[in-house]
């Protein structure tokens, strides 16, 4: 696969797989402590210049997403246009990091973003439930990669995880990683269904050991999606993994991040937990559909001093 002009330059894909971590290898999470610390990130004061920089940075970190039964070729093309040029008339904004679509739409998206640095991500492995035999799920990954996807967002089998079949999760992530080839693998933990921070931490540790390039909170299809505390738990897992192995893993909160203010709080958290090294779209992404316009509206607000209206922005 040729690297696109100006594309995000990932380091050579690491196929390094670490041994299966047992539950005891993962620390127990202090729920109250995590929630309090996450709350403190919301109280940082950002001055205007920083805010504008952060808003523009957030736009470049977007995985502009459409995952609906009603997705059509036309809609995906339109969304790709928006990802490439989020604010027509202002080339300093964007482009977004990637577009995220179902495997059937990958071909359309690849054509639409050709020649731009925007990557194409595909959800696979029977997104969003993951309730299918591994063989078919891997076939789906290969199909999406064959269509030209640069990144694969897989879901883990939460049912098996909750049944205690941890090794099955490790194996399926490793198998997906292999099926991805040169494509990057994002592992969706669906934290809303894992129910406890301890589970989230263990699932993160396992996914990273099995070769995940990114860990991602949610599918966006269950009521409880990304939250600051759950992202904090995952960021700490990434930090510990990096210290232990020297391998950087990316983070992608997805679902429920619908306004710019919240997005900035995430950026503050990443900066304070992992450091500035992670503050690029190579290591941090937002999975969102409605966040794009709110970011653009806030950028325009900072420029013009006027609170903006959705009427003046493209609806993708």
């Amino acid at each position, binding site marked *: 696969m040729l690297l696109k002009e100006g594309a995000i330059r990932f380091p050579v894909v690491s196929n390094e797989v670490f041994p299966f971590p047992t539950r005891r290898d993962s620390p127990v999470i202090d729920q109250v402590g995590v929630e309090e610390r996450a709350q403190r990130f919301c109280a940082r004061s950002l001055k205007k210049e920083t805010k504008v920089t952060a808003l523009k940075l957030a736009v470049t970190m977007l995985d502009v997403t459409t995952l609906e039964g009603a997705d059509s070729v036309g809609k995906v093309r339109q969304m790709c246009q928006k990802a490439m040029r989020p604010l027509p008339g202002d080339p300093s904004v964007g482009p977004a990091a990637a577009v995220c679509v179902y495997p059937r739409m990958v071909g359309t998206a690849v054509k639409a973003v050709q020649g731009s640095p925007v990557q194409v991500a595909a959800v696979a492995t029977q997104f969003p439930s993951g309730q299918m035999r591994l063989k078919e799920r891997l076939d789906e990954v290969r199909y999406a990669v064959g269509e030209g996807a640069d990144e694969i967002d897989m879901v883990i089998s939460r049912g098996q995880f909750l049944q205690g079949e941890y090794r099955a999760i490790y194996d399926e992530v490793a198998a997906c990683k292999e099926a991805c080839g040169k494509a990057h693998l994002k592992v969706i933990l669906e934290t809303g269904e894992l129910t406890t921070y301890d589970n989230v931490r263990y699932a993160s540790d396992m996914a990273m050991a099995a070769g995940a390039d990114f860990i991602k909170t949610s599918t966006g299809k269950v009521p409880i999606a990304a939250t600051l505390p759950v992202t904090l738990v995952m960021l700490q897992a990434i930090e510990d993994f990096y210290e232990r192995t020297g391998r950087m893993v990316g983070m992608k909160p997805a679902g429920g991040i619908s306004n710019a203010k919240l997005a900035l709080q995430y950026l503050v958290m990443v900066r304070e937990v992992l450091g500035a090294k992670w503050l690029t779209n190579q290591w941090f992404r937002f999975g969102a559909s409605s966040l794009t316009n709110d970011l653009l509206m806030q950028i325009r607000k900072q420029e013009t001093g*006027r*609170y903006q*209206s*959705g*009427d*003046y922005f493209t609806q993708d």
Partner: protein
Amino acid sequence: MSNLSIPKTYKLFIGGKFPRTESGRILEIRGAKGAFLANASRASRKDFRNAVVVSRKAAGAWAKSTAYLKGQILYRIAEVLAGRSSQFEAELTAQGSSNAEADVAGAIALLVHYAGWSDKYQALFSSVNPVASPHFNFSVPEPTGVVSTVAPADGSLTGLVSVMAPVLVGGNSQVILTSGKILSAISFAEVLATSDVPAGVVNILTGMRDELVPEFAKHMDVNALLLCSDDDAEKKAVELEAAENLKRVSLQADKALSPSPYHILDFQEIKTTWHPVGV
């Protein structure tokens, strides 16, 4: 009966809730003779922004609700207000009003007046237009959307209701700024909250005119503006700012609006339909 005297903190009314201002600032409300009456919230730009967001969300459903329902709800506001008239009279008197009783009665009468208009102004302002082609051509009024309203500064209840009711019955959602004598405005919000007015359709902010009026005119997601003012410089500034997104602007004298269906028309868009006529 309790002998406890519990001084009330007057908060804002946004989205059917009574939040404090996010800025944490207060206004001290003093009576006619300078005695301390209460603390009220001093709304900020951000409070206004939040109010517009909920207003926009509420606008669609309110515009679509039937004329019958709108009339019922306006009448219900009058009913609830009548039941609490003594509280309003006491508050207005404490703020220096000399004819509080007439003020409250006038507000109730205005609500009933506009309740009656709810299913009639459409017929009055619609028309069938003669055209020189085989079309049935007709024009009907439709709600403008989100309206920002600056209430008269005299603090009278009639003044507040006279600007709120025509905008409300026309199917718009609104954010109202009251300043100066504001006790009865927030008590009136309590009436709205218990009168089946959908959350977010009417929002009331208390604050400083200098600070908020420019924002009322600037916000791109506001479709129209009603300003009661006698200050020519203020009016001009508002018109200039409002031009940016072509807000519909209604400039009125700084006193209660007299009841008239034309105040409803001020916040309506006229939609014209060309319908082909068959042979």
